């Protein structure tokens, strides 16, 4: 009996244990399934991550290739620029040489032309001195015309010579334009007084300039303003300056006869005179060509505004170069 009870107890305990074990087993199975699920999820996530990484990698490779391509393109563009720059420098040098040759040519031509012309003028004078008394009125008139023509030619040649020499031996210095204009006006006292001209000069800057050339520029423009004037009209001239970025603009305004718009460009060309009546407005036709050349030396521009019969304004710009 005793044994039987013991056996029953054992069986019972065994059953309990078995059921506990089953529960544990169930639990383990469940956990296992869960872990497998998780593993599968992780696998998917892992794959996604890998594919993302791959895409990023691909993108980086592509970007890198693009950058290398771009760098190579830049390198070519850079070489091209260097080449173009060299070409420009070469071209500039050629232009300087051509320009020098041209100036040299103009100088030699005008210098050598003077020699035979002087001989003509001299013999005209000798002829006049020795034979004038033997000539009739017609012969005297012809002689006079030959003389007048050779004088005109002499003036033209001298102007050409001056024009070709303009800009040789340039020397940049700091100039107080107030003082420069005072000097120019004082040099022109005679013509200013006889014509009763009034000149009003505004505040002027200090600039680095080719001084003698710049002085000639102002002198030419002031003389023009006085010369091209209606009869019995008091010449009034206003000179002003204005800063424009890295340049300075100057303007000279007069109340003279004015210039027709068709002549606005032509007047700056050499030997172009727009007044065919030399007796009234005597000019050599080179003053404004000189002005243009001087302004160009200062990397500027010159232009004219005018109303016929009312007056003229000459404007020009000047680059303030660094000394």
């Amino acid at each position, binding site marked *: 009996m005793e044994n039987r009870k013991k056996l029953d107890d054992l069986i019972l305990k065994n059953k309990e244990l078995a059921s506990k074990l089953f529960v544990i087993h169930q639990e383990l199975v469940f956990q296992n399934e869960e872990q497998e699920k998780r593993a599968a999820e992780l696998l998917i996530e892992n794959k996604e991550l890998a594919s993302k990484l791959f895409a990023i990698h691909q993108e980086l490779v592509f970007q890198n290739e693009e950058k290398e391509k771009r760098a190579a393109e830049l390198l070519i563009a850079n070489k091209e620029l260097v080449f173009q720059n060299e070409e420009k420098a070469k071209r500039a040098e050629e232009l300087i040489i051509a320009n020098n040759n041209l100036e040299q040519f103009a100088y030699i031509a005008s210098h050598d032309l003077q*020699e035979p012309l*002087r001989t003509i003028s001299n013999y005209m004078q000798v002829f006049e001195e020795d034979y004038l008394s033997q000539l009739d009125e017609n012969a005297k008139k012809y002689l006079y015309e030959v003389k007048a023509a050779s004088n005109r030619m002499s003036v033209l040649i001298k102007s050409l010579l001056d024009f070709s020499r303009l800009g040789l031996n340039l020397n940049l210095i700091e100039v107080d334009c107030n003082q420069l204009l005072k000097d120019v006006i004082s040099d022109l006292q005679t013509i200013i007084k006889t014509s009763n001209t009034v000149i009003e000069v505004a505040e002027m800057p200090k600039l680095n300039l080719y001084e003698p050339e710049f002085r000639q520029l102002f002198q030419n423009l002031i003389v023009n303003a006085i010369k091209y004037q209606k009869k019995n009209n008091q010449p009034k001239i206003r000179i002003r300056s204005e800063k424009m970025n890295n340049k300075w603009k100057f303007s000279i305004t007069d109340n003279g006869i004015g210039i027709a718009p068709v002549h606005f460009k032509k007047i700056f060309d050499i030997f172009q005179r727009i007044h065919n009546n030399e007796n009234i407005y005597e000019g050599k036709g080179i003053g404004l060509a000189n002005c243009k050349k001087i302004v160009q030396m200062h990397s500027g521009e010159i232009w004219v505004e005018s109303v016929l019969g009312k007056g003229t304004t000459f404007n020009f710009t000047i680059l303030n170069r660094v000394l």
Partner: protein
Amino acid sequence: MKTKAMCIMLVDDDKNDNFFHEREIKKNNIETIVIVEESGTGALKYLKSMIDKKKIEPALIFLDINMPGMNGWEFLEEYNNLPKEIQSKVMIIMLTTSVRPEDIERAESYEFVLDYITKPLTKEKMKDINDKYFK
């Protein structure tokens, strides 16, 4: 009033200029003696033999720059080497077509070059020279 008669030498290869300049010089004083040398070498030869051979001594030389053979500058260099005895008797004035500032400056660098005038020499220019240097 006439200026004192003197001797002037023209050194210039241009015959026409020499003819004209002599005329102009003589307008001031008809008695002026004008010696014409058409080359620098000829002028130097004259100056070197002037004292020994008792030739007329020019007080003034008008010197052209642009001449074939020896030009005016080369003449001045040679002249500089002449005995001081000769140099002391003569004065030089440049008479040229050139208006180049370089030429004017170069002429001024020679102490025995008195002046620099441009062609043609005229009666008026000659009078100015007389008034300035020979009074």
